[in-house]
């Protein structure tokens, strides 16, 4: 009969750059149970909505997360626009789509790097981040910010991208996508990666669905769900289908993200081809009155912004449910029964972003 011990894990951990603490109940090297606790970085950003003009809150909404920042602002603006019945110009919708996909590229490349790092594959980590740098450069050039783009506002977007610049961006992406393909092959084929990820942290399709997992975590288990398919911004006009893998293990989740990179490149190309000319914003008059659940697909999964306003300048309540929150129950289930050494890999495989989970 082996002894049970409890090992505290995190919030400071060499391979886990997220403030999450886990109490791991171990029997020898096996994890029997894992109890997560978060709560180290609560900032109370949702409360700030009561003090800010609703148009200025977009800056704060954007700073909920430092990685999916652009998509947070899209979620927030879309909520307000739908409450106020604002018709956003087509060009702005397309630009939002393009920047959203750029965010996805940068987030997934960041994650692939961190994931390689959690396996101890430093070289792959640096290679992913080198490609990511190019994406960030394109973002900085077009929006003015590397990670906090600040280019989405209620009623449209702040900056336009000229058509010639759009063409150049696509050309750059063509060059990059061959690099990305090479990178994906390493993640798909390399023995080291397969060894550390195949069969690790398995969660079945039924479990993933009933636990409310979202994004690549759900898609890696064969649940075909992608909020982009609801057709917000310009996604309704573009042709794509959710990337689904059926393994349910870390390898499958990694493969979903790797394949989504190529999908994003494809979506950007389609969007650039179809982008109409015209205005990029409309004037916003009055104040919002009503409520709306705005759902967007972030790199980590579905994100929900609930906005309730009563016709004043300040909104009554904004609630943000970030994808990481929804994935934590699934993570707890994955951790039960794994090996101690695999814990960092599994935790990273849901792409946790605790900072935005607590807001």
């Amino acid at each position, binding site marked *: 009969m082996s002894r049970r011990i409890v090992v505290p894990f995190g919030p400071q951990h060499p391979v886990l750059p997220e403030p999450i603490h886990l109490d791991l109940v171990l029997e020898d090297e096996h994890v029997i149970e894992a109890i997560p606790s978060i709560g180290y970085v609560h900032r109370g950003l949702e409360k700030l909505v009561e003090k*800010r*003009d609703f148009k*200025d*809150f977009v*800056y*704060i909404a954007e*700073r909920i997360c430092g990685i999916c920042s652009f998509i947070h602002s899209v979620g927030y603006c879309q909520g307000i626009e739908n409450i106020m019945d604002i018709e956003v110009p087509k060009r702005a919708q397309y630009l939002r789509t393009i920047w959203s996909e750029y965010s996805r590229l940068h987030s997934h490349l960041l994650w692939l790097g961190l994931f390689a790092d959690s396996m101890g594959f430093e*070289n*792959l980590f640096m*290679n992913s981040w*080198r490609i990511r*740098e190019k994406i960030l*450069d394109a973002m*900085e*050039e*077009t*929006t*003015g*910010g590397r990670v*906090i783009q*600040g280019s989405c506002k209620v009623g449209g977007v*702040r*900056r336009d991208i000229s058509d010639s610049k759009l063409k150049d961006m696509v050309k750059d992406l063509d060059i990059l996508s061959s690099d990305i393909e*090479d*990178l994906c*092959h*390493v993640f798909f*084929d*390399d*023995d*080291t990666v*397969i060894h550390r990820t195949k069969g690790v942290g398995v969660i079945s399709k039924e479990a993933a669905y009933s636990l409310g997992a979202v994004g690549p975590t759900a898609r890696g288990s064969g649940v075909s769900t992608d909020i982009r398919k609801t057709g917000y911004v310009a996604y309704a006009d573009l042709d794509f289908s959710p990337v689904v893998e059926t393994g349910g293990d870390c390898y499958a989740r990694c493969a979903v993200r790797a394949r989504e990179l190529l999908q994003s490149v494809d979506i950007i190309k389609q969007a650039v081809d179809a982008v109409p000319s015209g205005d990029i914003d409309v004037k916003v008059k009055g104040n919002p009155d009503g409520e709306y659940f705005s759902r967007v697909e972030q790199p980590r999964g579905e994100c929900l912004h609930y906005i309730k306003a009563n016709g004043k300048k300040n909104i009554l309540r904004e609630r943000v449910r970030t994808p990481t929150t929804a994935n934590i129950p699934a993570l707890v289930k994955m951790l039960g029964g794994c090996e101690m050494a695999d814990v960092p890999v599994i935790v990273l495989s849901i792409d946790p972003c605790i900072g935005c989970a607590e807001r």
Partner: protein
Amino acid sequence: MKLFSMTKTIFKTLGRGPSTIRYPKEPAKRYEGTRGQVEIKIEDCIFCGLCSMHCPSDAITVDKPVKIWTIDRFRCISCNSCVEACPKNCLCLNNVYHEPVLNGPLTESFTGSAEPAEVSSEN
């Protein structure tokens, strides 16, 4: 060649030279549209206070009676909100980041008269 799937990437990388910049020897990357710091043309300012009202991080304070416009560089998040709010278009965002400093706070004040109250260090 499963064990050597990195080889192609490695050879490609060898021919490419470093991907990093030797900062500060070489200047950092900068684009025309990069959001850097707020600059003010104080002569045009009417001290209406709209910029401070719209600043999400409360970085700007405007003192109307004595005509002083103050910005806390550490609080500023370069969001462009004040620039859009200003009715006189006297604010703009340049594309240079502030140099690193050892201790704060880093506030700069400008008064409505010809000279700035506290001489700013850049530009």
